[in-house]
């Protein structure tokens, strides 16, 4: 199988799977089997692509669909950052599919066919977004991703879900239309191209004020990255079923946001220019503030999923901050953190969903002693928490390490301070949960093991194991991140 074909296969598989599972909608077992097979096929295609392109020596494969506007084609091109994102999304999709099957059946959710279809479309859009060759293609898939996740967020169909959906859509669609699109068209007006080009597309003589404003427009336009003050949609979207939260927080949506920002920094502005733009410094401060404030808010939440949501907001700003710093090590950290956070956060969400499926508990004070009832789930939760805090032997340590190196290089004491404070806060809001779960007696302790359905437990365990493995064998991801940034790890 050639490179070109692998690329096509990666792009098409989720969509074909989506069509097939709609056709099989009447037979739930067949439908779910199709979902699993599709996700496996996608992973195979991604692996084929990775084997060809992972070392970065081969000429990147390209694919052009059609010319949308004169001079702008809808097309795809493989590059290391996109490859990294594709690998994460494909791996996590499999786990998420298995988990979804257990969760959706365990909770007797309605409209499961629509659910799996939207899921497949969202993954298809993620693949397109990750591999897009220019900003317009990326924008198209960015919007498809927003719209395809809307039915997932509002899956419950209640008015409460509709209100949450309104917030979700309002923030994401609003920022993308008002800022992101404007930034894209402005870029097009200034440079006459939207192709992702190493070292950026802006000419030397573009004035600093325009560039600053554009940079700010991009950061705020990419609402999926949830920098404050456009973070409200993420906690609102917590009404969705847990697999959707996992999709939002780990697999696709927020990752698409920070991925897009990193991509814009790398291939539209270029790292050198990013460091020079006055606005990038302000974005570093804003991201740093977001990290600390969101961690602080997370500390005060008593609902487990909401705490996780605010934790995500703070973790996302690590990537934004690293990207805005623009040095080689910082960019390495940004790329790596996209992967690392994905694995850690999906573990945590799966654990939260697993608890909900087995016991219908959602509040943190209810979790006393639950470690004895659900040892597998809570072990996984612990690993996820360790990764979030950034301790070895979990993957979170890696990206924090490189970010620290990048900050040291620049002698950016603000960044150092932010990392230290947020690490403390992270520890403060995760470890008490772990402690309570394992070392405090439950109010209703029956002494029996009462785990969630096996697909759920399997998925949680897989995610936790992957988080550990990523620390022990980081090379597949680290080499890609190194290619992206040009730093030697």
């Amino acid at each position, binding site marked *: 199988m050639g490179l070109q074909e692998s690329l096509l296969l990666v792009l098409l598989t989720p969509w074909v799977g989506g069509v097939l599972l709609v056709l099989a909608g009447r037979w739930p077992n067949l439908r779910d089997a199709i979902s699993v097979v599709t996700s496996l096929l996608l992973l195979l295609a991604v692996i084929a692509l990775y084997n060809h392109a992972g070392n970065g020596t081969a000429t990147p494969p390209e694919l052009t669909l*059609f*010319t949308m506007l*004169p001079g702008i084609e809808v097309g795809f091109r493989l590059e290391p950052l996109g490859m990294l994102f594709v690998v994460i999304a494909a791996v996590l999709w499999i786990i998420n599919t298995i988990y979804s099957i257990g969760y959706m059946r365990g909770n007797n959710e309605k409209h499961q066919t629509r659910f799996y279809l939207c899921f497949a479309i969202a993954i298809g859009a993620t693949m397109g977004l990750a591999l897009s060759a220019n900003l*317009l293609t990326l924008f*198209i898939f960015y919007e498809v991703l927003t719209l395809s996740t809307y039915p997932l967020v509002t899956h419950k169909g209640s008015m409460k879900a*509709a209100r949450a959906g*309104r917030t979700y859509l*309002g923030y994401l669609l609003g920022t993308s239309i008002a800022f992101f*699109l404007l930034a894209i068209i402005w870029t097009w007006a200034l440079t006459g191209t939207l192709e992702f080009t190493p070292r950026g597309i802006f000419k030397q003589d573009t004035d600093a004020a325009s560039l600053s404003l554009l940079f700010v427009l991009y950061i705020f336009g990419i609402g999926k990255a949830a920098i404050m003050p456009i973070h409200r949609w993420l906690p609102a979207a917590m009404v969705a079923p847990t697999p959707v939260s996992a999709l939002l927080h780990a697999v696709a949506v927020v990752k698409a946001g920070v991925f897009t920002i990193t991509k814009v920094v790398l291939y539209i502005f270029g790292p050198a220019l990013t460091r020079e733009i006055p606005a990038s410094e302000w974005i570093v401060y804003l991201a740093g503030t977001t990290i600390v404030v969101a961690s602080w808010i997370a500390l005060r939440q008593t609902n487990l999923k909401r705490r996780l949501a605010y934790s995500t907001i703070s973790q996302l700003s690590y990537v934004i901050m690293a990207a805005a710093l623009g040095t080689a090590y910082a960019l390495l950290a940004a790329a790596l953190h996209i992967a690392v956070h994905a694995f850690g956060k999906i573990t945590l969400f799966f654990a939260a969903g697993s608890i909900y499926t087995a016991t219908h508990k959602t509040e943190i004070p209810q979790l006393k002693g639950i470690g004895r009832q659900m040892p597998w789930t809570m072990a996984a939760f612990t690993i996820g928490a360790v990764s979030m805090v950034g301790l070895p032997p979990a993957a979170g340590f890696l990206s924090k390490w490189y970010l620290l190196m990048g900050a040291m290089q620049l002698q950016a004491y603000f960044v150092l301070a932010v990392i230290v404070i947020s690490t403390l806060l992270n520890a403060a809001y995760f470890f008490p949960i772990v402690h309570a779960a394992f070392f405090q007696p439950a109010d209703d302790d029956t002494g029996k093991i009462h785990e969630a359905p096996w697909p759920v437990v399997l998925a949680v365990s897989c995610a936790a194991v992957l988080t550990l493995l990523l620390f022990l064998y980081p090379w597949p991801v680290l080499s890609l991140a190194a290619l992206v940034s040009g730093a030697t790890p």
Partner: protein
Amino acid sequence: MSAHLLILLVVIPLFSAPLCILLRRSRLVWLLSSLSTGACLLISILLLQQVYRSGTVTYMLGGWSTPLGIGIEYRLDLFAALVALFVSLVGFAVALYSYTSLQKELPRHKHPLFAAAYLLCLAGLLGITVTADVFNLFVFLEISSLSSYALISMGRDRAALLASFRYLIMGTIGATFLLIGIGLIYSHTGTLNMSALQKVLPALTGKASIQASLAFIMLGLAIKSALFPLHLWLPSAYTHAPSAVSAFLAGTATKVSIYALARFIYSVFGKPFVITQEHIGIALITLSIPAMLLGSMLAIKQQNLKRMLAYSSIAQIGYLFLGLGLSTVASVGATITHLFNHALIKSALFLSLGCIVYRTGKAEISSLSGLARQMPWTMAAFTVAGLGLIGIPLTAGFISKWALIRATLTPDYWPLAVVILITSLLAVVYIWRVIEAAYFQPPAPGSTGRTAEAPLGLLVPTWLLVLLSLYFGIQTTVNFGIAVKAATALVGG
């Protein structure tokens, strides 16, 4: 042959109209009107191809020569061909749609009358696009307007009568202003032919009466195209007209008036006079801003969905005038693109709304509760067309928005880009109100909860336009490539 095609575009619907009355049988009449609008569509496609390949097509009616005699010249350039294409396209879809739609809205014996008025209206609109004679343009404009008054008055509601009457008063005042303007030009130049006028008028721009004629013509056509604040006739007319008529007029009538306005600016008076000397461009831009913002805000407040779409049209007309007012190749290109795209999108929206009215009898937002489960295809059509109105990528609306924003991103006019973006955010709000009501609200307690999906006779034409609006969002050679070419020829770089 090809030259005759040009005049056939007008002649076919014009002659089919009386035939409809003679045929009498509802089904036969529908067949005839579908056939003749279909023929118009075919001809306009052929003509567009021909104009694209070998340039402007002209035709002399009766073979009289222009300079001396009263021969009427017909001429089709790229701009006109593009407008003719979408007018006949919408005309064809609505003709197909009207048969089923009218079953519930009009007694059977009136169907032939409806078809006759409909075809006359189409003939008038197509006539405006093909004529190269300003007086002829007035006549065609009145043919289309008079028949549209009749069409609107056929609405089920008695308020339709009053809406139609008010439109008649406003429309006639507008047309008479146009007539005065044409008369003043004629008394100075002795010709009515557009290309002849374009040659002689630049020498006369100092004369007060030519300036007055410009003012009269601009004002007259601004009334006809419902530019804010001359839009008051539009919401009621679209709200109370039969569904098919709302869809047809929303897609074509105001658009063709804007076409005529652009013609007068660029092909009769000329850009140096209108834009540079008389600053009409600034006036149009100034009026387009409240049109966009207030139109959208009023759309948000409406409970009646037809009225909501009507106010949304007023906002979209603001976009169109904005492009005309900026008066660069890019901005006029954007206007032409948006003329085309918005015609498809807005007609599709009105048609899907017509499906809802057909089943529920109401167009209130409250009657939509839980309708998505009962009429999935209709609501899907509305949703997709609504996304087009917002301007989501892969829909035709995105292309318009891209072109428009690109045209406003100049050192002087960039704040207009912000206005456009705010307007499209407001569009998200009013479209999403509908979607939430249909997909999330439980059916009203009083209702049976058993509304059937709309019949195929309605769904097929609706989806035809919806799919086309997606197609033109991906394949943009016609609605963007040709539009820019047309604008280049019109504004002349």
